[in-house]
């Protein structure tokens, strides 16, 4: 069985097992399934990073026509990831702290941590300091939707809050209540 990686139109390289039909089936053997889950997790996260996607929902596996089509379906082998299998994988990712249910208390939709909150915190701090905005009060909107594309553009607020929370613990940021809502001030010089 000659399986080979496949590059999609968006330039993403799919692994060779994506062309392996059993990859889409939830395996009964737990050890095998663990491998499958691991590979799926890797695939989802790398694709999310590739396309800067933060959310995946179980429904994405149900119907075509969304951002995830390229990995959740493989028309070349006529397979798609069943929603139940995706749900299992997402649950596994949440338990491994690679994703979180968002909104909480449901299991249909997750935020993907293709970078962990700590990594995001570093990215955020780096960006703030490199753009010279230390010690100024910024709204969340200033961070997630700046006029110029940044690594943080489109970052979900949940992840942003977590990242800020990480910075607060190390006394590098402070949450401030301002008129437009919430603001944050980053401290420099340490």
């Amino acid at each position, binding site marked *: 069985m000659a399986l080979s990686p496949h590059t999609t139109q968006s330039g993403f390289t799919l692994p060779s097992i994506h062309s392996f039909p059993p990859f889409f089936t939830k395996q009964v053997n737990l050890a095998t399934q663990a491998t499958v889950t691991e*590979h799926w997790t890797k695939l989802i996260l790398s694709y999310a990073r590739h396309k800067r996607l933060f959310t995946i929902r179980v429904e994405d596996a149900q119907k075509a026509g969304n951002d995830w089509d390229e990995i959740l379906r493989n028309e070349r082998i006529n397979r*798609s990831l069943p929603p139940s299998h995706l749900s299992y994988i997402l649950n596994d990712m949440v338990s491994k702290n690679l994703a979180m249910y968002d909104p909480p208390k449901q299991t249909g939709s997750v935020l993907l941590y293709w970078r962990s909150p700590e990594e995001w915190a570093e990215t955020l701090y780096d960006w703030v300091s490199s753009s010279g905005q230390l010690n100024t009060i910024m709204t969340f909107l200033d961070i997630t939707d700046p006029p110029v594309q940044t690594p943080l553009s489109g970052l979900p607020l949940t992840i942003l809050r977590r990242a800020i929370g990480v910075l607060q613990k190390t006394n590098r940021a402070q949450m401030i209540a301002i008129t437009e809502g919430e603001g944050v001030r980053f401290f420099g010089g340490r």
Partner: protein
Amino acid sequence: MGCLKRCAQVVDGSIPVQALLYPDEDLLSSQEGVGIYDGTLKSPSHQNGTVHITTHRLFYIDLAHPRRNSFCLDLSHVSRTDYYAGLFTSSAKATLWLHPLSTQPRTNRTAEQLSPALINSAIAEIWVCEVCSFKNSTAGLSPEAAKVCSLCGVPRSLSSATSSAPTPTPSAPIATKSVSLPSSYHHLSSSLPSSSADLLEVGSASLTPAETTPATGELGPNGEIPCPACTFLNHPSLPACEICGTALPRRQKSSTKAKSAPSSRPISPAVDSDEDEDFEAGSDEMKRMIKISFRKGGDKNFYAVVKRSLLGRGWEIKGVSKSTLASPGPTSSAATSGINALLQNVNLNAATSQSNMENALQDLEALMVKAKDMVRLAEDLNERLTAATSASAAPMLSSSPSLTSQNVVEPEEATFIRSSLSQLGLQMTNAPVTLDMIRDERRWIEELAKELGGVLQGQTDDNIGMMRQRGIIALDEVWGGWNRARGVALIPPTTFLQVLPQLPSWTSPPINMRIFASSGLSVLHTPPYTKAAFASRMVGLINLTGPITTVKVAQDEQLPVGLVQEMVQEVEEAGEVCRDEGGSGINVFDTNGWDSKGGNEVMWWVNIFKEYVWDGQADL
């Protein structure tokens, strides 16, 4: 008193019913607490008694006056029966409809004529058969049986000499006087001299001239029937040729004559109507019935027996054959007569003595069966002797515990038993091993394992074992097959399971047991069907042909699908293969998700996940 009077006969009810039966008559059922309806009205003198149904007759034994009011009724009079289940205070009833008098079976009347009332009064009549000169006695025979020579089966002819052993004179006055004698014949006969020889005279006197002629010239050449096959002139009463056994043509005249003269006697309606005013020629059917009212239940069973007895028609079919049965053994049919019958009787005698001999030999066989028990007893004795000697030996061997002393004795005992068994010729090689053959539990199991190995793999070339063709077989089948092969001393499942661990050492290639974890199914299998061997074979198959379904594997292995499924599951469990449940999801119908699972058969692929190295996007 219409039909009761006409058809029933008075019997002495103080005599037990069994004693009243003909030799060929069987008592079938009895029911007490019944009353009799004569026609539609209750018969006042028959209101509390017991009815008995036999193969021939229906008895009513009155409780209050058994001697006077009891009667019996020939079942041949009964044309049909009805049953009424009862309602509230009305008891269940069985209705017996009787033949109208004119259509009453002739044969019966003939019988009555030939042995009138004598049967009931238990007075024997002796007559000599014309054909074989056998002296027949009518004593205790049913009317039908009494008409036929009990040796050769030739119907009795009128002219055969009769002599009543005791003169029936005492019964005659009774017959004349007692009004309770219901049969009209008796009234007829009562007016006659009661000696049966006289009676016969009267009978022939009443013959019409046309028929008396052949009757008198019976033995003349004209009366004889030439056989259509061999032209032998046969006695007119023979149904078949005496020489060659060919069925003889029945001549109208001679047959009626041969049957009986009285049948053609001017029949009695006139007499009857004289006697019973209520029984006119135009009497309605309602008067020709007898009802049995079951006041104490038991009606259903009794009615069923009556029906059966009527269907059996024991009074006419068996009448003849059973009468000959009184002599040595059963004859084939009533039709045989003459020399055939004599020869048959000789044969029957031989057969009877043969069966007697066999019965005697059965005892010997029983003794042979018992021999085993005797051996066991001897074994017991031996055991006790051993125990006694070991017990006496124990104090002497003070240092060694008694256990070892027993162990010392054990082989001796075993050899003794075994040698004595073989001396008795009881240790058969092909007999199933039973526990009592080998007392040692461990050895027993071993022997069983050996035997089972033979059953599975076949001891000889012509005996193909269960697993000669198949490498894997479910345990229940093995157990069933083994016990079927044993036939006796079946092996309980517990013992069977004990035997299995011993099996590999007695089989080649070794047969092992394996239990499937998922279902608990236990199988016996040869080495090619171990988990690893099967897994590698399956992987090889997939590599060869591509992904494969369970059914395909089963086809390839020529095993049941269910079994293969279990095996494949184990392979999957081992991580050698992985499943693809299909479910494309590419077309719109699959978006529901319902088609993605059940619709497709699982395809098995080699598990490549184990050695897979990530070759996708590498920018983590």
